[in-house]
């Protein structure tokens, strides 16, 4: 199954989205969360993101969803730190974090492949609320 990693400056944000996405997928999808610094401040940590990617990787790829600013840079850095072994298998979705995470998790839970999960996550930015 495709893995998902959620990245936010706030630990509470990713914990909440994790809860929501896990409920909707019956806990079937490996979802990792990276949020806040080790000493409890708001922020992102590239090494934590890297570890979460490794943790949820089942060999079918990992889609990373991020919030704003340094989350993007830290996630890009995490992917670089993973090296060649993961090249092309981990991508950041250009998608809103909450909607993208739910769309990606549901798509992964029905067994879709990496490209499809990434596409569906990115399509979430076109979702209309009304």
């Amino acid at each position, binding site marked *: 199954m495709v893995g998902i990693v959620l990245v936010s400056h706030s630990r509470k944000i990713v914990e909440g989205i994790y809860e929501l996405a896990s409920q909707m997928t019956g806990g079937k999808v490996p979802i990792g969360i990276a949020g806040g610094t080790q000493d409890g401040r708001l922020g992102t940590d590239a090494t934590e993101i890297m570890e979460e990617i490794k943790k949820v990787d089942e060999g079918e790829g990992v889609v990373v969803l991020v919030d704003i600013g*340094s989350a993007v840079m830290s996630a890009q850095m995490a992917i670089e730190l993973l090296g060649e072994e993961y090249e092309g298998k981990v991508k950041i979705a250009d998608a809103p974090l909450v909607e993208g995470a739910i769309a990606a998790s549901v798509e992964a839970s029905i067994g879709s492949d990496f490209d499809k999960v990434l596409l569906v996550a990115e399509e979430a930015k076109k979702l209309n609320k009304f």
Partner: protein
Amino acid sequence: MVITKNDVLKIVDKIVEVIKENKEYLTELDAAIGDADHGINLDRGFDAVKQKLTTLPETTDIGTILKTIGMTLVSTVGGASGPLYGTAFMRAGQVVQGKNELSEEDIVKIFEAALDGIKQRGKAEAGDKTMIDSIEPAYKALKDSLENNIALPEALNRAANAAKEGMEYTKNISARKGRASYLGERSIGHLDPGATSAYLMIKSFSDVVNLS
């Protein structure tokens, strides 16, 4: 003139000290146009760097020291300056891997690698109101000075002056990157916190070399 490993460690100590002294100032600058955490974040990061360096074996080369600083910043800073300065130090470390002293040429290479790393990571250029506005003029001043046979301490002094001018210039322009870009024109009139911390680091480098 060469920069020894001991000099590098002295420079790092100086940076740790100067960032700590300017923690509140950097955070105030960031409060005006960003998210008010630049000083606190960098101080935490460099505290962790100081701690981490004490655990490295005596035989550790300069490249590994710089890479270790980079990785430590990446995992402890939290804000955008973590991946940015982290990349800068890691790239700098790569170009002097295995060395126990640095030639003047190596120092130019370090500046170049750090600058390129930050540009790539942040997808920014000079004039965007970022740390690049301090680092790029410093790099150019250093390179020009050394090419014109100016001694390293004076070349670094000129680099620090160029960084200072670049930092001051950020006051006159509007931000195109980072949280401050949300403010657009309203960011004019404020110094960029990243350009300021970059200047402080370059100045620390120059000060240590000029005093030794």
